């Protein structure tokens, strides 16, 4: 079956997050827990619903990924862009992703 990860947006700041194996919401797709069989996917879905109900995250979804040379890659471009950020540099003057206020 297709491997899957659980992703959402954090309630407080909306930043895209993924669920890791320890049950934490992390900002890097590569740290995500990968479900490789149906039971694990069911568990992810339940975890996503619980985190939504607990007001930790919004828009929780299980998405398809593939593993290429040990790197996770979402199958849909939408999810790849969510994981990697906009595919473009920002407006002139922008100082990079890790500004003091929004350090990852």
């Amino acid at each position: 079956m297709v491997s899957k990860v659980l992703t959402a947006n954090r309630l407080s700041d909306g930043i895209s997050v993924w669920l890791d194996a320890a049950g934490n919401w992390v900002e890097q797709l590569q740290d995500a827990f990968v479900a490789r069989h149906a039971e694990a996917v069911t568990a992810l879905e339940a975890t996503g619903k619980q985190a939504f109900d607990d007001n930790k995250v919004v828009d929780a979804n299980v998405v398809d990924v593939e593993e290429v040379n040990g790197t996770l890659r979402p199958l849909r471009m939408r999810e790849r862009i969510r994981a990697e950020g906009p595919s473009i540099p920002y407006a002139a003057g922008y100082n990079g992703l890790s500004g003091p206020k929004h350090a990852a």
Partner: protein
Amino acid sequence: MYRYDEFDHAFVSSRVEQFRDQVERRLSGELAEDAFKPLRLMNGVYLQLHAYMLRVAIPYGTLSSRQMRMLAHIARKYDRGYGHFTTRQNIQYNWPRLSDTPDILDELASVEMHALQTSGNCIRNVTADHFAGAAADEVADPRPYAEILRQWSSVHPEFSFLPRKFKIAVTGAERDRAAIQVHDIGLHLKKDEDGRIGFAVYVGGGQGRTPMIAKKIRDFLPEEDLLSYTTAIMRVYNLHGRRDNKYKARIKILVHETGAEELSRQVEVEFAALKDTELKLPEVDIQAISTYFAPPALENRAEGWESLARWKKTDPEFARWVQQNVQPHKHPDYGMVTISLKPIGGIPGDASDAQMDAVADIAEEYAFDEIRVSHEQNLILPHVALADLEPVYRALVASGLATANAGLITDIIACPGLDYCALANARSIPVAQEISTRFGSPERQAEIGELKIKISGCINACGHHHVGHIGLLGVEKKGAELYQITLGGSGDENTSIGEIIGRGFEPEKVTDAVETIVDTYLGLRRDGQETFLEAYRRVGPQPFKDALYGSAQEAA
């Protein structure tokens, strides 16, 4: 420009405090997402791919320097150092924290701004000609009427839960620079034979998945009937608009299914009942609002003619910028300056905090403190003396804001697309960047002349692709991006919806396809004066189809 009165201040402040309480309750878990979502949307807060997005209203695109500085401050303090000016004359921030949004709205309120009705099924920001109050060809300034509509429609209890969102645009000239025929209601300010001010009223235009050109249902509506007639339209729509199907809920579908004649009849019935009620606009009220929009005291600055000619002779880059980005003002010693937010290879509509501050400074020093946002995602200084054009240009150059491409092929409208938007199916910005880079040479752009490219990353058409001379629509096909091309669209007084030219193009081929279209046009135009749109309307799609696909393949 309009200044808040005590009621406005109290109202906006109370909404900020109300929203602060709602956000606190949401973050504490007291409010669930299902309950909170409509509340945050009413305050302009969306959830996009990477983060929340805050859309701030800029009524009819008019800003003061003080307000622009606040937009820069918000970009710097609460976002990632930039903002995105939109086709609805608003600004969007792509990275605000939900927990910061009450503070952002509080800061906006301090300069008489807010984010109300930038989302939801209500009457959205009323847009207007970005040259309002300055254009030589206007009958009257459309902004007082836009402001009257704004006040009337703000949290209007009857029209806060419409079948779908509702957009009104007003233009004050025969030359339509507000794209009124692709709005739910389009108002064209005009005078009748007795010299009275009124409006031609268009209804049921729109883009999205079902593009429609609005129908004119009134040739002349006296100005005092603006609110009663608009209310009549809204009532007919509110009653009969399709609430059963989101995709058929806009008034354009109602107009289409009912027929303009019958819809007009229903509106007239409502109007007859409303005409002589409290909705009738007293002349004194129109005058009072108009006073806020009185033009600045423009002194004669005839010395500018000589100095302008001299500067143009010594600096060809400056001359090119004046030629392309400065339009004649109603006062002969002044011009209307377009500040391009379309640097070659850049992101259409984006401006950094430093650029916003720079525009505020320039407007304060040289342009009577007035700035506009155009629906083509540029900024405008509506009143600049010809004598001041050179220092304005130098200041813009220093901030990377002097691209001389207004109305040219690199002046591209693009929605945020899949780089930001949760609804998008394909990216828009990188496509715009590649086309801009390909055609970036000033000489080549000048040779091509007026050509409007508009790009949307999904069928919702925020990038106005239906009315692009060349329109690009990004779709997802088998998990990959594909771009459909439409030709012959236009959003002016001769509005037309572009025609799909054939099968779509992969991202790596779409710029080549655009180049093929442009080269075909250059090869068949009558002379250098015939624009792309004129040529397309003369010859139709076939030469372009042949060039893109080959005549045999298209026939098959």
